[in-house]
């Protein structure tokens, strides 16, 4: 039996999340919820002086361990990222960065924080049609 998705990394991150809370006077903020369960994640960030990079990223809200761990990992992976790079940061890139296999049923949970950050930063990727 495999419980791969729940490797220590998920459990640790969800119990002791990094960058948990809300930034005062943020440069960008957004909140999204998962319509399946009503879980909410909000993201706030501050940029560098040139307004080109994410200098500080925090998340808040309630969610399952996958959503919380994903948000926690996301704040770590995107701190210092330029807005340009954030636009190129794909769903698959992020799931790879999480370092655990995510089952299709849980992709929505894993991607909630990334989608929220994109919304806050107006960095939605272009749709390829």
């Amino acid at each position, binding site marked *: *039996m*495999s*419980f791969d*998705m*729940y490797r220590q990394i998920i*459990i640790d991150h969800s119990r002791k999340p990094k960058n948990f809370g809300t930034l005062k006077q943020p440069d960008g903020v957004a909140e999204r919820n998962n319509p*399946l*369960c*009503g*879980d*909410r994640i909000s993201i706030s960030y501050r940029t560098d002086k040139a307004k080109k990079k994410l200098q500080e990223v925090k998340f808040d809200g*309630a*969610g*399952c*361990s*996958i*959503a919380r761990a994903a948000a926690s990992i996301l704040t770590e992976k995107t701190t210092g990222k330029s807005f340009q790079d954030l636009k190129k940061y794909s769903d698959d890139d992020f799931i790879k960065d999480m370092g655990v296999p995510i*089952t299709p*049923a*849980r992709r929505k*949970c894993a991607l909630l924080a990334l989608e929220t950050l994109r919304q806050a930063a107006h960095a939605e990727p272009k749709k390829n049609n």
Partner: protein
Amino acid sequence: MTPFIKKSWQKVKADFPIFSQKINGQPLVYLDSTASTQKPRAVIDAVKDFYETYYANVHRGIYTLSEKASEAYELVRQKVAQFINASSATEIIFTRNATESINLVAFTWGRQNIKRGDRIVLTEMEHHANLVPWQVLAKEKGAQLAFIPVAPNGRLDISHLDTLLAKQTKLVAFTHMSNVLGTINPAREMVRQIRKKAPQAVVLVDGAQSAPHFQVDMKKIDADFYVFSSHKMLGPTGVGVLYGKHELLEHMPPFLTGGDMISHVTLHEARWNDLPWKFEAGTPNIAGTIGFGAAIDYLQAVGMERVFSHEQELTALAIKELTAIPGLTIYGPREVKDRGGAVSFSMKDIHPHDLASILDEQGVAVRAGHHCAQPLHEILGVESTTRASFYLYNTEADVQSLANALKKAKELFNI
């Protein structure tokens, strides 16, 4: 179908082909029948047989196949009427699902009868299907919504029903059984009370969770409208039922318009067909309806009383097993009387989604989320819950698997 009297539950399970496979290397323990049910071989065969041997459109051809298809389709309407003890098959309208049945009433009867200042009484435990259509209607018409509260024991607090039933009450709509709490509401007594206090009000009962699980009788319940879905009672998806009292249906305008629902059409106008076809525009889900007929046959062969008592036994066992797990909270009534087999719970420090994923790894399929009843979850004070629900193909071993899988989840999360 071969009749079976007192067929063992293990043999009932064997009638469902899906249970012969493994999920994640484990035998499938399917505990999500409240969302949708598995299908017995008899239903699958009925659909296959229709497509292979007598497929044609209904109510159209003069040819043999179309006549045979029409006859089979209409026979199911009679079966449904008899299954719920309606006065006549003309009171049975086929829709896509229970949601569409409610929308049909909201769009036709509702738009014709609800006026500014009128009151629509609902309950706090409604599925979104029996809430959102009324919210939309109330907003459009300037009507007001009022809610029968849910008491801490998971039952409706009907002590204030009379007060809620103000004289401007035009509609009361409530679920017969909660898809989250498992609570069975005293529909018959409630309708009686409504008739007394608010005789002008029309009553709609959402039977999506009751018709599949126990005997319902339209003459006893005496609701004006009653809705349910085939897929929640062993039948195919895409078939729903709206039962309506003949006189009300007669005065309602059509819902969707087009072919089949007319009796005469000129370039500028049309006359409507008789009941029930007035409400069935376009080619219906013929195959699904025929499969639904086979599902009703199957349920009746087992016997609805037996189905219900089996589910109650499983529910009692589940409540006992789950209550024994420290950190687990069950929502809804603890006693099995007037309670169906939907058991929602939460586990301290494990989010319902995580719990459902870990259970799935062990072959146990449960639902996690707000189960399309977000306002009820707000009242319960939780974002979401995990729900196990039972039907005739479940066994005591399934309940045991659930309990074991929950214990395993606690180990994994070190709690």
